[in-house]
């Protein structure tokens, strides 16, 4: 596999103050050919800044976790990637964001097409109040023209990819709302996979699930990253450590540190990161 990430020879010095962090977040790895890249990305809700000047390169075929205390801007950053903040009237975005090299906030970008390329999974499973089958077929119908046979194949393939097929193959025409919480979340993932995204964003995808359902989603992420970049926002640092290859720590709307997960949890570069992950604040 092509080496996408290489060590930076000199690590940037960890900063002490939040103001310093704006200028010098600790980024100890260099990502070549990122799947997603933000350059000085800022989002404000009205006059209130939510994220400030975040420059981050998210690698392909890897899972990247974004961690940080509540209100640090994790979800705002995630939603900025597929322009979900556009739906909030007061939201104002500046800076640049690229998905697969394409400027997401460029003048000719269709947000609907963008969201096909970048799927978003929410904290609470949100299947459509339709059958299991139609949940998958809905997005496919919008983006592709298919025969009924082709649609059957796509539905089965997406459900298999989401490790859900065996559990629902006899219930395809039943309401998706009758599935368990974990099954609903995997159905949402299957729905996203059916339209062949290049990246999958997950916003606290397991916070409403029990440990078994959580493990299924984590196993699924492990498989899916072979085919796409995954970005997960999580409050659960043990989950970040388990599933992510890279981790970004945000604080007060700023990126503090980005590093390999193993490094970040073993020897964080910034004192703020150290204090947060060891539970000394937050």
């Amino acid at each position: 596999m092509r080496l996408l990430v290489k060590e930076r020879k000199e690590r940037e010095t960890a900063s002490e103050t939040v103001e310093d962090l704006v200028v010098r977040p600790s980024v100890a790895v260099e990502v070549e050919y990122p799947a997603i890249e933000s350059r000085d990305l800022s989002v404000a809700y009205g006059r209130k800044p939510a994220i400030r000047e975040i420059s981050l390169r998210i690698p392909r075929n890897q899972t990247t976790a974004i961690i940080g205390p509540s209100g640090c801007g994790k979800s705002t950053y995630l939603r900025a990637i597929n322009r979900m903040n556009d739906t909030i009237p007061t939201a104002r975005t500046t800076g640049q964001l690229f998905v697969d090299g394409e400027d997401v906030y460029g003048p000719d970008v269709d947000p609907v097409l963008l969201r096909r390329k970048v799927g978003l999974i929410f904290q609470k499973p949100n299947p459509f109040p339709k059958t299991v089958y139609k949940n998958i077929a809905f997005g496919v119908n919008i983006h592709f023209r298919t025969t009924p046979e082709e649609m059957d194949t796509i539905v089965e393939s997406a459900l298999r990819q989401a490790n859900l097929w065996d559990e629902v193959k006899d219930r395809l025409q039943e309401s998706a709302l009758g599935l368990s919480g974990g099954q609903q979340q995997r159905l949402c993932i299957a729905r996203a996979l059916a339209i062949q995204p290049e990246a999958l964003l997950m916003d606290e995808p397991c916070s409403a699930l029990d440990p078994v359902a959580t493990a299924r989603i984590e196993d699924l992420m492990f498989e899916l990253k072979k085919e796409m970049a995954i970005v997960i926002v999580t409050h659960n640092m043990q989950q970040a450590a388990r599933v992510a290859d890279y981790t970004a720590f945000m604080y007060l709307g700023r990126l503090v540190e980005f590093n390999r997960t193993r490094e970040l949890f073993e020897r964080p570069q910034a004192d703020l990161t150290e204090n947060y992950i060891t539970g000394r604040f937050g």
Partner: protein
Amino acid sequence: MPEKAVRKALAQGMQELNENMVTLAELSELAIRKAVDSLSRSDADVAREVFTLDQELYALQEEIESNCVNLIALHAPVARDLRAITTSLKITTDLDRIGRYAKDIAEIALQFHGQIPPGLKDIVKIPRMADLTIDMVDRATQAFVNRDAESVRNIMEVDDAVDNLHDEVFQEVVEHMRDGNLPIEAGARYILVNRHLERIADHAVNIGERVVYMVTGDRLPRVRAADRAKAKKRSP
């Protein structure tokens, strides 16, 4: 359970671990000091104290190991907490081994049956070897207690001096035995003591290297003493 309460439990566990580790370090250093003392004065009572210390060291090591596993299992520690726990797990073995070598030296002391070991002070350099080794153990354990990486970053260089002295002591003992100035039995025991002290110094190096990792996260490249000696000979 609220997040803060969980962290408080971890903080308390870490504090207990550190206190136990400091005790373990002090006990192992005391064991080696007493072992050398029991040998130089052929004091059976002091030698027996070393046996007791060795048992205490073993029991405390087991307790620390159990505490470390509990901390990992219950609190999923990371960063400096994780490094302190894994370092403690490794260092307990070194401190326990130091205690075992101290016990071995104390056993040798008992074999002199209350007679002052012949030639120990005047003929061979074992007391010097013991001083250097004890200094190394003290330096390594103090570095652990004070979280001071810099004082032990180059501890392997001191170990090189101990290794050289070990070779000299060996030669000296052999020469004295050959010349008839030292009974063979006593000389053989000195060679064993010499070897035990040299191994204790090796464990002090291990502790020093682990302390550097614990404090800074840096893993020092591990180079065998023999390879360091070879490299020194090659360099002009």
